[in-house]
């Protein structure tokens, strides 16, 4: 059999190259972020985050070799067991976890800490893929087929919520993408997005303007609608949808102004408008925007950033690493990073689509979705388009757990993909 062929022949080198580029850029920027002009430490010094990250990269490489060596069938066969182990770890961490930055979600092993929540993404991906690999299951027709999926996601989500890691929990929203691909009706994510958009818009603008805009859009839709559609009830559907949307707008407004206490309202507002509390929660977002915005087109140059280096931006080597890229390398740097991510996830979608087994395809979409969600939220918060949710930028942010979990997640898929020529189509 051709299975004896070295793995290097079949692995998708494009993804590997993007992965390595991300790691390299990330590592350099971590060094820049922690660089202190007074105490010049080397990039390889284990006492700073850059040195440690290099060690994490090294260990990740070892992990990757292991993943590539292990038989690809292992992941499908053991997916539920891996899921169970991770759930066990999540339960364990609730009782025996160390408290770091206010969340009890770390397991300490010697000098290093691991975060089981990071690995829950992998476990849930594998479990969902395994579940959906049964050809009898259809997301298009049967509602009851959704229940196990909801269960698979809800259990770790609940445990993570208990250990105060809201950010990691929100990542599970990314599975909407894979479910959509596998047949979930399009209106469900569409409604979700419209609701979220309406909520945010209501908080930011005057409600009468929004209502007016909705009416104008509804009018336009009806006017452009083919006559036949209009006669078949399209007219009424549009009017009802418009009314429901306006209802939501006023409902949210009423809830904000009459039900919530003043300080609760303030907390929500600051998520949307950081300038309303520039020294508190808004500080991160303002400083992050200043750092990125001050980069200009070409940036201030390597190690020349002042905002990130002098601690104006918090968490500059972890969640806000993108600020360092923006400040020191300017628009050129940030554009490269955005391109790398879009290229990576698009390539993953392409790879997923060419899988013969449903398990592999679902898993591929899970990986693409998770990476996309992190990209969306992390970069979105640094440029002020998303509320501040503490989740890392894959392959860039400092941190062993996240680097390991993303590497494992990605390379399991690459391993499966490399075995594709030898897999029989089942789905």
């Amino acid at each position, binding site marked *: 059999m051709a299975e004896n062929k070295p793995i290097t022949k079949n692995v998708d080198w494009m993804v590997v190259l993007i992965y390595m580029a991300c790691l390299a850029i990330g590592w350099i920027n971590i060094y820049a972020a922690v660089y202190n*002009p*007074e105490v010049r430490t080397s990039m390889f010094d284990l006492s700073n985050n850059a040195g440690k990250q290099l060690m994490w990269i090294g260990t990740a490489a070892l992990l990757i070799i292991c993943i590539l060596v292990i038989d690809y069938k292992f992941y499908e066969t053991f997916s539920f067991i891996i899921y169970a182990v991770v759930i066990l770890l999540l339960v364990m961490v609730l009782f025996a976890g160390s408290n770091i930055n206010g969340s009890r979600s770390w397991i300490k092993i010697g000098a290093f800490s691991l975060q089981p929540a990071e690995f829950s993404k992998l476990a849930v991906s594998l479990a969902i893929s395994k579940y959906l690999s049964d050809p009898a299951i259809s997301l*298009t027709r049967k509602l009851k087929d959704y229940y196990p999926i909801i269960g698979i996601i809800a259990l770790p989500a609940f445990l993570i919520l208990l250990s105060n890691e809201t950010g990691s929990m929100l990542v599970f929203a990314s599975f909407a*993408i894979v479910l*959509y*691909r*596998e*047949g979930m009706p*399009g209106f469900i994510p569409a409604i979700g997005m419209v609701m979220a958009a309406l909520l945010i818009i209501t908080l930011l603008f005057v409600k009468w303007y929004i209502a007016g805009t909705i009416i104008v859009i509804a009018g336009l839709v009806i006017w452009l609608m083919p006559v036949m559609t209009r006669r078949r009830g399209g007219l009424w559907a549009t009017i009802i949808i418009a009314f429901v949307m306006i209802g939501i707008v006023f409902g949210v407004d009423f809830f904000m102004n009459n039900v919530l206490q003043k300080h609760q309202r303030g907390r929500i507002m600051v998520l949307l408008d950081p300038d309303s509390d520039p020294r508190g929660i808004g500080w991160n977002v303002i*400083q992050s*925007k*200043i*750092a*990125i*915005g*001050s*980069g*200009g*087109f070409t940036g201030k140059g390597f190690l020349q950033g*002042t*905002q990130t*280096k*002098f*601690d*104006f931006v918090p968490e500059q080597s972890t969640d806000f690493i993108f600020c360092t890229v*923006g*400040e020191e390398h*300017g*628009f050129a740097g*940030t*554009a490269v990073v*955005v*391109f790398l*991510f*879009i290229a990576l*996830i*698009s390539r993953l*979608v*392409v790879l*997923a*689509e060419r899988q013969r087994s449903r398990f592999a395809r679902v898993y591929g*979409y899970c990986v*693409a979705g998770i990476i*996309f969600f992190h990209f*969306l939220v992390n*970069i*979105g918060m640094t*440029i002020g*388009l998303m509320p501040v949710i503490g989740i890392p930028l894959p392959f860039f942010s400092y941190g062993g757990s996240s680097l390991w979990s993303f590497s494992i997640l990605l390379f399991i898929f690459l391993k499966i993909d490399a075995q594709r020529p030898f897999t029989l189509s089942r789905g």
Partner: protein
Amino acid sequence: MLENRRFVIIGFFAIVGLIYLLRLFYLQVLDESYSIESSSNSIKRVIEIPFRGQIYDRKGKLIVYNTPVYDLLVTPYKARVDDTLRFCQVLGIERHDFDSLMAAASAYSRVKPSLFLRQLSKEDFASIQDIMVDYGGFEFAKSSLRTYTAPTLANTLGYVSEITKTQLEKQEEPYYRQSDYIGQSGIEKIYENELRGKRGTKFVMQNVAGVYKGSWKNGELDTMAVAGENLYTGIDLDVQQYADSLMVNKVGSVVAIEPKTGKIISMVSAPTYDPNILASRYFSKNFAALVRNPYKPLFNRPVMASYRPGSTFKLIQALIGLQEGVITPGSGFTHANCPMHCHNHPATGTVALGVMHSCNPYFYNVFRRLIYKNNIQNTFRASAVGLDNWHDRISKFGIGQRLGIDLPSEYKGNLPDKKYYDRFYGEYRWKFSNIYSLSIGEGELLITPLKMANVAAIIANRGYFYTPHVIHGIGDKKVINPDYLVRHETGVDAHNFEPVIEGMIGAVEGGTARRSKVEGIEIAGKTGTSQNKRGDDSSIFIAFAPVDDPKIAIAVFVEYAGAGGSAAAPIANLVIEKYLTGKVTNKALEERMLKADFMSKVVLPGQKKPIPADTTKKKPATPVKPATPVKPTAVNKPVALNR
């Protein structure tokens, strides 16, 4: 079917990527405001305050210099004060002071250093420096304090203090910032631009906690601080302090001018205060006390206080009379046909004798001739024309206008003209009989001690003066304001001065000021008694010496001290002797003047005027008749009693 959904998904990814790229392009390339905020964030401009210029006296002695002091700064979030009690003891503050200072600092910024205690002296600094190591978050910053060699010249020099809110808002070019120091009065105010120097700016990088992280761009944009220009005065510090000591317990002024140049030799405003008390961390407390002081020590009397010149004005009347030709040096007048009273004195057959004995009717007649010199029949019209002509003559002496000394708030004084009286009476409805009290320096005339010192300088110079000025050199090159090099002519010929000077010599040798004459120095002087409605009259004396080669012209005003010969003349002559010879021979006179207390006679606002019996009782040394006005003058003021 479902395969096609991948296009939706990839499309969604692409749209998000595009939105992010556009957002990044806007943030980084289009919107400039972020890079500006970034510099204000991490690039800090550190201002280096230069030393203010120093001020020297005429012999090169320092009058004002700078002492380094230390400001204590606190960074609230770093502040570790475990033992508040000891901390307060060390700094000499109360517990509630500590709390309020700390709260104020925290309110300003938790991460940036703010002022905790200002201007600790070098000694204080040395004693607490070691102890402060125990308390984190505190640091010292060097600054400087004005220091005065001698406790004198307070009002002339003025003081420096933190810029006020209004000054900050009103400044024309935005130079000053909050908590900057600025000259608030006197020389410090007038020469602020020269004294302040040039601020240096350093750009340094700092982190979020405001901690220094090195210079920005290797300091290529930095500028050095340049110390302020030194100022050179004509003040003689020894004479100044001597004059100060003579003016203790008196309210008034001493102004001494070098006639040939217009340099101020000495300028006393009594009562005064030690300028050092306004250059300390207790500024506000001390300043408030000075403001509350009923004797108004902050009022710069030499240039701001107004008096009637009294008999000293007769000198100018005589000079104008001689110049206009209405009298000759040999003209004489008797007391006949004069509404004014006079004291008993020998006949005044010449101008010199008139001046020497300060004869009121004599100058009544001179003034009458001056006013009616024109041949207009109508006395009302004649008075109007005559007064304006007289006004123009007198103005040349600097009366009724600002001389232009380099001190703030110079008082203009008042020299009435036709318009002035027209306002009271209406045009051509007044004449000489309404205004004759001007003839002896009373009535509506108002002058300042500085103006009278200048009149003494004019007589010393026989006809001209230079604008009196404190500073005659700015900076190392000793640049002088060109205005102070302009010779102002008075339009009175030199030969007309001689009879007047002769009379002034007579006044000192055997006239109204004879008891204060100095052996060996020929002094020409004239006493004056300025009427004071509130209490005892003000004692005035103007003089210059030596007569042949005048080196000093002086005016002394002592309020509530009575006649000119009683206080002003002795003080003036002692100062003249001190200046010319460096010593004082008449120790008894000096002793008496040092001890004299006219302060107790001051009638403060709100106090009742002493009963008339006291006011009329003049100094026993100069027995005079009580003031019994025969006719009320036009402005219903009692006729002056002049000596």
